[in-house]
């Protein structure tokens, strides 16, 4: 094989990857107003989670005489049934939700990419993994998480572990199918024909094509994880009661739905805005990747 041939096919690969590469997609995202709004909201939420101790006080501090106060200048989101500041609990709630979402998405992506690529490369491994994937996907996530809580005890670790088990199959499928499509591209054949090694083909040709679908699936994992964590905290099987989380705040507000709507309105809004923003981003990225499939 000649180095010039490999360099030529590499140039083709770079051009193909450039179109689908995350920086390019980000560039086009920034021209869409809805996507920019969504990005800003997510940045604000992340900032709130990171700076929570700086921008607000102790979320567990309570003043018994200040119970169920409506929003005012001193307590902009009002207070809850124990006299705790709803604003500070909502800001700290971002920590729990975003941690659950980000950690679950990262671990799921790492495991899913390895399994998906192995499944895409070896047929026998593919047959086994895909059948197991079907089985795991059939598990209602809340049911699995609840049963694991029974054994391991409640906590962020248990919640994340249960979510990773249920979400890895989805990631594995995405990686496997995009890897299969990418490895069928003419430029991969070309690279193989001029004698590029398996590892080189994988790094230079297959993986760059998969990066955006993987990012999208990671984002879906994130939104689902945020929703599941809040649902589990809502039914009391998620985080311990002393950790502020949006789900727990909504649960505590159940007896004050009409008398103190601020108790559930603000944490609920924060939760919906976070998930909605991520979904809008996902939608726009898919739209950019494949304008025909817009909005699916």
């Amino acid at each position: 094989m000649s180095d010039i041939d490999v360099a030529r096919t590499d140039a083709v690969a770079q051009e193909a990857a450039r179109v689908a590469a995350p920086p390019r997609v980000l560039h086009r995202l920034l021209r869409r107003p809805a996507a920019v709004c969504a990005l800003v909201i997510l940045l604000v939420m992340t900032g709130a989670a990171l700076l929570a101790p700086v921008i607000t006080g102790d979320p567990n501090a309570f003043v018994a005489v200040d119970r169920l106060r409506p929003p005012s200048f001193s307590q902009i989101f009002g207070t809850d049934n124990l006299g705790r500041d709803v604003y500070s609990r909502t800001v700290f709630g971002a920590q729990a939700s975003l941690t659950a979402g980000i950690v679950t998405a990262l671990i799921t992506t790492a495991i899913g990419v390895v399994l998906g690529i192995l499944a895409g490369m070896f047929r026998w491994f593919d047959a086994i993994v895909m059948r197991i994937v079907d089985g795991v996907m059939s598990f209602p996530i809340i049911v699995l998480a609840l049963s694991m809580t029974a054994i391991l005890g409640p906590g962020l670790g248990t919640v994340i572990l249960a979510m990773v088990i249920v979400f890895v199959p989805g990631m594995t499928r995405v990686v496997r199918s995009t890897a299969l499509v990418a490895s069928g591209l003419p430029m991969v054949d070309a690279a193989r024909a001029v004698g590029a090694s398996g590892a080189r083909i994988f790094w230079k040709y297959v993986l760059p094509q998969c990066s955006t679908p993987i990012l999208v699936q990671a984002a879906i994992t994130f939104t689902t994880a945020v929703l599941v964590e809040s649902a589990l905290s809502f039914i009391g099987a998620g985080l311990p009661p002393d950790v502020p989380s949006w789900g727990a705040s909504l649960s505590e507000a159940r007896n004050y739905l009409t008398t103190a709507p601020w108790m559930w309105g603000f944490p609920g809004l924060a939760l919906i805005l976070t998930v909605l923003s991520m979904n809008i981003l996902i939608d726009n990225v898919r739209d950019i990747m494949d304008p025909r499939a817009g909005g699916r």
Partner: protein
Amino acid sequence: MLRYLGMRLLALLPTVAVPLILVFLLLRLAPGDPAALLLGDSATPEQVEALRETLGLNAALPVQFGRFLVDVLTLNLGESIFLGKPVVEVIPQYALVTLEISFFALVVALVLGIGLGALGAFRDGRPAGRIATALSIVGISIPQFVTALILIVVFASGLHWFNVGGFVPLSQGYFPHLRSIALPALALGIAESAIVARITRGSILDVIREPFVTTARSLGVKPSRIASVQIIRVAALPIITVSGLLVASLLSGSAVVETIFGIPGMGRLLLDAVSRRDYQLVQGVVLFTGVFVILVNLVVDLYYAVVDPRVQLGRKSS
């Protein structure tokens, strides 16, 4: 068809093995002695040792798994410590309630979802279509328990149409029973309808661009007839598949919704079993749910193969 059925059933074995192995390992991989876990804190060491012997926990793991499989196949899932009844007898009455709510929720999800999705596709790019599409993105982002809380505020606290927290069994009259499960089913269904809407829109948009639709249009077939007869029929396939996948998500959501509305269903049962450390019952519920979802998806797959012969010829969706 028979060949396909046989292959499909064979392929089911490893899939069913997953919930079995998971449930089997759940108790055995737990930190601490499963027998001690089952008996609770007040058990004496002699009691624990006796239970270890009866449960066969002293045998090698593969042997234990073999016995576990025999137990599952003979529907011997142990006894619920708290309820004092065999797990197999406890589950059906709770399962029926959950299945009923999930069924109504599925109807709500399909009606709302297909309506919104079709609107989004046929009016693609126009205001009505944009609103329908935006609604489905917003809908997907609102968790079921928030929908439930909003429904309670509007329909129970505001309009007083429904009561919250009072489940009325079917034996006390059909109408009061339906009224007591209306809000839970609605809360569950609305959340799922957003997913149906997105899939419906996507698959209709795909079909609209198929050559046969262009042909029909050029032949002067009325647009309404093309939409109702040709497009919807082809687009129905992915929607059926999604309905199968929705079952797992409905069962997940019902755990949350049942808690809010005080409905005695599987989710509630599991939550209670977890907080009472009733491990045999937890095992039973998890196993039942997992196998149920797998069977529903098998039925969907078989139905799919009947409707779309291409599936049998090995054109897999993956």
